C-alpha cells in the first residue's frame, strides 16, 4: 500500500465520522480529535474502521500516538505488511 493510498483510506474514514470536514485543511501535527470535534465514541469507531481497512490493530495504549494525522499515517505505515 502506498502512502497515498493509506492517506486516502484515513481521509475516507475521517469523512465518515465528520462529513462536513475537509481533512486536507487539517494541519498534520494538529490533534484531530480537537480539530474535527471527534468525541471518544467516534474516535473508537475510527480506530475500528481503520483496523478493518488496514488490518492494523491500534491498541488503546497507543491512542496518543495517532491523535495527529502525521502520527496516524506513520503508525499505520510502520505496521502494514
Amino acid at each position, binding site marked *: 500500500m502506498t502512502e497515498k493510498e493509506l492517506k486516502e483510506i484515513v481521509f475516507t474514514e475521517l469523512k465518515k*465520522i465528520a462529513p462536513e470536514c475537509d481533512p486536507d485543511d487539517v494541519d498534520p501535527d494538529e490533534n484531530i480529535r480537537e480539530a474535527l470535534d471527534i468525541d471518544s465514541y467516534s474516535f473508537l469507531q475510527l480506530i475500528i474502521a481503520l483496523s478493518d481497512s488496514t488490518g492494523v490493530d491500534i491498541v488503546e495504549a497507543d491512542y496518543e500516538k495517532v491523535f495527529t494525522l502525521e502520527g496516524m499515517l506513520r503508525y499505520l505505515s510502520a505496521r502494514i505488511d
Partner: protein
Amino acid sequence: MGEFRMPSLGADMEAGRLVEWLVKPGDRCRRGDIVATVETQKGLFEVEIFEDGIIGEALVQAGQRVPVGTVLAMINPEGAAAAAEKAGTVPPPVTVKAEPEQLKPAEVPSERPPVRAERLACSPSARRLAAELGVNVEDVRGTGPHGAIQRIDIEQAAQKAASSAEAAAASRPLPAAAGTLQQGMRQAIAAAMSRSNREIPHYYLEMEIDMSRPLHWLEGENLKRPIRERLLPAVLLLKGVAKALRDVPELNGYWLDERLQVKQELHIGFAVALRGGGLITPAIHHVDKLGLTELMKAMGDLVERTRAGRLRSSEMTDTTITVTNLGDLGVRAVYGVIYPPQVALVAFGRIMERPWAEGGMLGVRRTVTVTLAADHRATDGHRGSQFLEALNRHLQLPEEL
C-alpha cells in the same frame, strides 16, 4: 378500545408531525412495537405502541402536524376485531347506545350550541396567508382575541414547520451533514432550559475522583478484548452513576405536582451532541441491569441512532436522570442545567493527569471532576454529597461494576 395518541417526547414538545405510518389499519400490534415515525423540533422519532391490539383506521394522515395528545388511531381489542374479520363487517361502535342518554337536552344544558364551539376562528388575512404558505389552519393554535388565528400564528407555524422539516431532512439521509444549528432544536432546547432555570432551584456539588484504578483496570480489560468490544471510560462512569443511584435513589425521578416522585426504573439520559450543533439526551434503559459490555453496546447503538435520527419515542420520554460527558473533549468541569421534570444531572469533565496528594505524598494521577446539579426542592446537599461519595466508592471497584 384503546387510543394511540401523539406522544409527548419531552417537556418542551407541543406538537408533532406524523411522518409515516409503519402499520396499516387491521395490523396486529404488540406493546412496544414501532408503529409510526413522528417528527418534532428535535428530529425524527420512532413511536412505540403501549397496548396490544388491532390498529384501527388512521385518524391522522401522514404529513399532518397535530398537538400532543391527539388520537392518531384507535386500537381495537383482538377479540372484537377477530369477530369482525370473520363476519366481514366493521364492529359497531360500542358507544352508540350510551350517546342518546348523554345528549338529553334538558339534562345536559350546554352553554353554547356545539356548532359554534366547532367553528374555527381565523382572520381572513391569516387564512389566505396559510394557503400561500401551505399551512393547515386546523393545526394552528390561535393567539388572537377569543383564540382567533391571526397572521402571526400562521407565520410562526410556517417557520416552525420549515425548521423542523429542515432538521428532519438534515438528520435523515445524511445525519452528520447538518452544518448549521437547527433552529427548531435550538428553540426546543431554549424552552426546556429556560423553564429549568426559571423553575428549578439548582444546587451544585463537585468532587475530584482519582481514576487511576478504574482506568488501569479498563486498559487491562481492553487488552483482552477484540477491538470491537473495547470499552470506553464513559461506560464505567455511567455504570458507577447507576450503582450510586441505588444508594441514593432520591436523585432518580421527577418533580411533579409539587412533590418528588422517585422512580424505580433507572433510565439514564445520555447527552449526545450532534455534529453541527444541538443536543439530544436519549435514555439508555435499565442501566443498572446491564453488564459493561451490554452497556457499551447500548451506548454505541444509541449514539449511532441519535445521529441518524432514528430514536424511539420511549427513549425520549423515559429518562429519569441525565448524565453528560462534555469533558470528553476538553473542559475540566461541567455545571449542568437539569432537564425538567428530572431532579438531577451528573456531569463529567475531562479525564486528565493532575497532581494528587495522598498519604503525605504528591503524585500524578489521572482524575476526573464530577459535578452534581440537583433540584433543591427534591433533595438537599447532604444527600447529594452521599451520592458523589458512593459514585467514587463504586468507581474504585471497577471489577464489580
